């Protein structure tokens, strides 16, 4: 069975290693538009490598990564991809205001010489309002709480109206209240705006009840997450991925279609 929704992110038998150390082997996954796919795994399992490959920050040794159907190496529509890094990215050496951080998300779309339009400025206001950090616009990001910093990084990712949102450990060091705001924001983005979400975390609490599918990076493979013994917060297992076990023994294709 194949999803009719367009596929935002696709790994097609991707293999990658650092030097001679293999990290991912024949990894396959699909994240369809309007779907929420969580990826879990132990520290060092290759989650972050998966994320970097998906964002074109690393090149696979074999296989293909596609964004909206296009190989990531030739993909140019980067404003349609939003990336929310770990909160440590907000540890700025110099004061940088919330507004400046959010505006920096426009830099790719504007190009080297472009200037933000009135519409861009409105969008900055809108996303800061949406994420409840509008009153902090002039505050340096380093003076905010962990949850507020995370929301600012999310606002930066949303400022270009992305169709795919990739989050890396977004709840690390974030209090319960901020987690709740983050969950509500993600729920709205997926359900109302049809954004595809790839959520990478070792903490299932952040996506429990939101994810259409939970995958696990284990021994270099991307597989449907194991049962509640491994992830007690996941709740009932998601519907099984459309199974396709290739005859050559490579990994099954796993599709985030809920």
């Amino acid at each position, binding site marked *: 069975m194949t999803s009719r929704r367009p596929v935002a992110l696709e790994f097609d038998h991707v293999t990658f290693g650092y030097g001679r150390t293999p990290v991912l082997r024949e990894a396959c996954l699909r994240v369809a538009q309007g779907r929420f796919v969580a990826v879990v795994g132990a520290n060092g399992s290759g989650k972050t490598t998966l994320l970097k490959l998906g964002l*074109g920050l690393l090149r696979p040794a074999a296989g293909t990564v596609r964004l909206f159907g296009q190989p990531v190496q030739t993909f140019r529509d*980067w404003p349609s991809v939003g990336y929310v890094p770990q909160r440590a*990215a907000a540890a700025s050496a110099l*004061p940088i205001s919330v507004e*400046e951080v959010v505006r*920096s*998300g426009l830099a790719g779309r504007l190009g080297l010489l472009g200037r933000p339009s009135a519409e861009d400025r409105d969008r900055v206001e809108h996303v800061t309002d949406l994420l409840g950090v509008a009153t902090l616009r*002039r505050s340096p990001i380093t003076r905010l709480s962990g949850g507020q910093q995370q929301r600012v990084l999310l606002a930066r990712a949303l400022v270009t109206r992305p169709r795919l949102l990739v989050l890396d450990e977004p709840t690390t060091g974030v209090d319960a209240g901020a987690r709740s705001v983050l969950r509500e924001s993600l729920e709205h983005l997926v359900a109302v705006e049809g954004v595809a979400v790839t959520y990478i975390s070792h903490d299932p609490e952040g996506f429990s009840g939101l994810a259409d599918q939970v995958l696990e990076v284990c021994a270099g493979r991307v597989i449907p997450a194991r049962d509640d013994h491994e992830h007690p917060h996941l709740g009932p297992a998601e519907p099984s991925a459309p199974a396709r076990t290739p005859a050559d023994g490579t990994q099954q294709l796993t599709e985030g279609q809920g």
Partner: protein
Amino acid sequence: MDPLSLEFMRKALVAATVVCAVAPLVGTFVVQRQQSLTGDGLGHVAFAGVGLAFLVGASPLFGALAMTLLAAAALHRMQRGGLAGDLSLALVFYGGIALGYLFASRSGGGVNAVLGFLFGSPLDLQWAEVAAVVALSLLVLAVVVVLYRPLVAVAFDEAAARVAGVPADGLVLTLTLIVALVVVGGMSALGLLLISAMMVVPVAAAAQVATSYRGTMVLASGIGAGSAVTGLLLAYHADATPGASIVLVAIACYLAAATVRATVSRRADSARWSRTVSQ
């Protein structure tokens, strides 16, 4: 005597003020990327360029410019090739000082003249040299103004900027090249060992009290220019070395800003504590 009535002071003031106002603009990106020693490393390479220029009888400015731009490109390549930032800087740093000393010792009577560039001699500048310093500084200013937004994006979070489609590699190379231009522009006014201080110290001072990136940049530039004027005038009246005086004034600004910040923060803490107790 009014120092401004002396032509050598006017030349020194123009060159030092312009380069010290521009150096912190570049410094904000370097400090944010935690590469504060890049200017220092390239300063040592410029020393090799000056030594080579003396050896072959060329202009020290062109020798330093050619060598630092080459080294900036090599440094960028080494860092992108996976060599750790501090290791690549150390290689450039030590290579530059060794080559500089080798060239200087081979240039016969030029050793002292080459060594003079390490600490600068703004009072000996000719108007043509002042014009070259101003031209280099204006070029750097133009690059910073035009590329301000993408440079901020790369300096704050390079990975996110790449994902957003910002050409990060080209911008990081551009940044290293404009650091090289500042080093060469400042070598006669402040010296190769001290110009990198003006890329870092005013930024550190401004960061104590500013609340935004743009604010830090503007304030740091003002502190740089103010330090140049004050330092030169102090040096004139106290018969001290100009480059060292300028840098020491900038460090005094940092100490003052850090004291202001600590005081404000202590008062805010005690007000918060009082409010908590009264509730």
